């Protein structure tokens, strides 16, 4: 290595979403000069949230979605119906401007943000720890390779990030879902208390607990407790839910060590065969198409699972003909996502004279209850699933197609109807070599970068998990006292629809079958760290963002120590 090399930055972080925001915060707070490259547009916290608090009557078409616009420019993103609308559209990727090869491979929903902060603005905010059972799952049943990290290694890092993120929930002491550092839990609907009591008696094998969400119920510095306006995905100028904008980027900014460059599409990383390290990053400005490079001592890829993997694949060189840091050949393989969907809907006539104040931005949660103590006898699958629940009171939207006219119709539509309590199963996905992404041979995007192709399908295990989730939901809704229960169908969600894509640059002890070591560091290239979902060796059935955050903070700690030792 030539000692006189001048570095533009100590570290370059690609991506400003959940993982990139944490990398920026941790590295700058440890004194490193950091450049964050974000391919999306600039977005100011607060004043960039154009849809925040807009009432329904201000929306174009008063909330009916602009169908032609979405079909032409947002055919993929608009499928994310729970958070894509005219109040959030400016956060999302324009599919026409930034396509992937949808007509090759197999159907896959790649949900993408296109602003600083990435998907941390529009995420579901559900935050759950992986358990010891999750970290041991691969080693136990033989699917995938063993995690090189145990629960005890990551537990302190979970605590570390949770205190900063601000997570509300209720401690339950469950081994399959370790408690986080909680703020006080959000209150429940009366119907949820009713259901809780019935399940305790009639289905004691399950626990009904608060959804654990990265939304404040107590103020943190610079951020206020939730004001319960409801639609979080439009952005939150009080910083009540955790996003890069509300939390990690301001912290990084405050150090004076952060340079954030938006509109910066990373084309590739350049590998120096002499030093055996990455020397620089090649960037294309999304607006001007100007090309530039930046060098640094180390590089953190936090560009999302698919984004980071695409960059590595497009960074092939003589030394790494199959993609940078891919001597193992597993890069792009072992992709996972969670299957999700409604498993059952119950209609309830209890607590009809009870109503609510405020829009609680989460449902409750039923943690995994299958295959907990070894394999359940009646289970034709390994691993398990959890349910996110939704409680709502039927309103005019449900009666929209009623017969009749006049004052009677108006009166019946304005009044609350029965309660609905629904269970949505989130099931674990096994890591399989055949589930993969790769680069198209002939399609490129507007920057000349090869487009991503997906080749992913659910295995029998996920299909059987989903069927069981539907069957058990029916049992639970009956135990809960539903007046009647409608079973969810067993239809599998489209791969990618869980927006939990992960695993394409997995970590492992053996460099022959993994891309990263236990510290998210490349086996092949010591100054490369990858801390977005691509490092995940298995998927658990819980939402993964909290785990990305904890591993990112841990990897930064390790990297800075190595940096100080002069090893990197």
């Amino acid at each position, binding site marked *: 290595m030539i000692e006189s090399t001048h570095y533009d930055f100590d570290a370059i972080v690609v991506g400003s979403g959940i993982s990139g925001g944490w990398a920026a915060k941790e590295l700058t707070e440890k004194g490193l000069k950091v450049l964050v490259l974000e391919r999306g547009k600039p977005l100011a916290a607060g004043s960039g949230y154009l849809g925040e608090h807009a009432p329904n009557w201000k929306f174009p078409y008063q909330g*009916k979605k602009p169908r032609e616009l979405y079909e032409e420019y947002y055919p993929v993103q608009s499928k994310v119906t729970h958070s894509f609308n005219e109040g959030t559209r400016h956060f999302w990727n324009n599919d026409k401007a930034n396509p992937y090869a949808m007509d090759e491979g197999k159907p896959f929903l790649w949900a993408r943000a296109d602003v600083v902060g990435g998907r941390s603005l529009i995420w579901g905010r559900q935050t759950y720890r992986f358990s010891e059972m999750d970290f041991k799952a691969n080693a136990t049943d033989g699917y995938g390779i063993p995690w090189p990290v145990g629960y005890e290694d990551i537990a302190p890092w979970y605590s570390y990030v949770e205190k900063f993120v601000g997570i509300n929930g209720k401690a339950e002491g469950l081994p399959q879902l370790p408690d986080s550092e909680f703020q006080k839990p959000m209150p429940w609907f009366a119907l949820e208390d009713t259901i809780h009591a019935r399940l305790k008696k009639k289905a004691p094998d399950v626990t009904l607990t608060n959804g654990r969400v990265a939304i404040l119920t107590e103020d943190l510095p610079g951020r206020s407790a939730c004001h319960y306006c409801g639609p979080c995905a439009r952005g939150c100028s009080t910083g009540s839910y955790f996003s890069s904008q509300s939390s990690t980027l301001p912290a990084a900014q405050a150090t004076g060590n952060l340079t954030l460059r938006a509109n910066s599409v990373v084309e590739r990383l350049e590998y120096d065969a002499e030093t055996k390290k990455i020397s620089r990053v090649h960037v294309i400005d999304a607006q001007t198409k100007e090309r530039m490079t930046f060098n640094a001592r180390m590089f953190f890829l936090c560009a999302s699972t698919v984004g980071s993997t695409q960059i590595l694949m497009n960074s092939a060189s003589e030394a790494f003909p199959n993609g940078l840091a891919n001597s193992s050949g597993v890069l792009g393989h072992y992709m996972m996502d969670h299957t999700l969907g409604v498993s059952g809907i119950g209609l309830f006539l209890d607590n009809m004279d009870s109503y609510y104040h405020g829009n609680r931005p989460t449902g409750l949660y039923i943690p995994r209850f299958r295959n907990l103590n070894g394999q359940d006898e009646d289970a034709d699958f390994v691993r398990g699933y959890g349910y996110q629940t939704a409680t709502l009171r039927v309103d005019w939207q449900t009666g929209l197609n009623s017969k009749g006219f006049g004052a009677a119709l108006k009166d019946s539509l304005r009044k609350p109807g029965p309660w609905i309590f629904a269970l949505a199963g989130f099931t674990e996905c096994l890591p399989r070599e055949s589930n993969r992404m790769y680069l198209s041979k002939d399609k490129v995007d507007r920057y000349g970068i090869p487009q991503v192709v997906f080749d992913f399908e659910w295995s029998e295990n996920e299909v059987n998990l989903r069927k069981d989730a539907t069957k058990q939901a029916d049992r639970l809704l009956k135990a809960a006292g539903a007046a009647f229960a409608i079973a969810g169908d067993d239809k599998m969600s489209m791969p990618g629809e869980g927006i939990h894509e992960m695993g394409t640059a997995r970590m492992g002890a053996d460099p022959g079958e993994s891309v990263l070591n236990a510290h998210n560091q490349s086996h092949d290239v010591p100054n490369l760290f990858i801390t977005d979902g691509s490092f995940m060796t298995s998927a658990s059935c819980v939402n993964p963002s909290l785990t990305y955050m904890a591993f990112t903070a841990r990897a930064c700690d390790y990297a800075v120590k190595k940096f100080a030792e002069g090893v990197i």
Partner: protein
Amino acid sequence: MNRREFLQCAAILISGATASQLGFSLSLEQQGFLASAPDYNTTPVDYFTPAQRNIVAAMAEIVIPRTETPGAVDAGVPTYIELMVAHWLNDGERAIFNQGLQDIELRIPQRYGKPFDQLSQADQLEIMEELEDAASGSEWYEFGNVMREFISEAPFICQFKELTVWGFFTSQEGASQVLRYNPMPMSFDGDIPLAPDESSWSSPL
């Protein structure tokens, strides 16, 4: 946008007043805020003839009449319907709507001697009930079939009712004077008493 401009937008949200009522004009950047946009149902539109406009208003008022609270006309629903037919329905849906409206426009005076909007409310209701009876086999009426895409084949009367009900309960009048509206609840309580005559909340879409 600077802090002052941002707070101005917040003032619009909280007070429900317009920018000019509050004594300032909006910068280009502030106009990007959806919350400070004009109400959708005040968007200028010139699609229906004056005669059709009268019919649409009378029909909408039959679906959701003014009672002790505002009705469809008070809530700007006729303009909403005109906007949606002009700009939102696709060609096939628009053809169904136009044909249905023309049918009312041409057939009713032959049968009743007067245009629809000049008939008694009882006659108007009878006509609309006849339309609903004739359409009752449509999948639009299927129970629970509500959180779905707009049904392109839905008959005129179903289109009309959907646009009226939607346009009413998402309007400012419908949301805040017929339903209950609170943009800034500040807390959550999952167990407060509900009196028999109380309305639902207007929920953010």
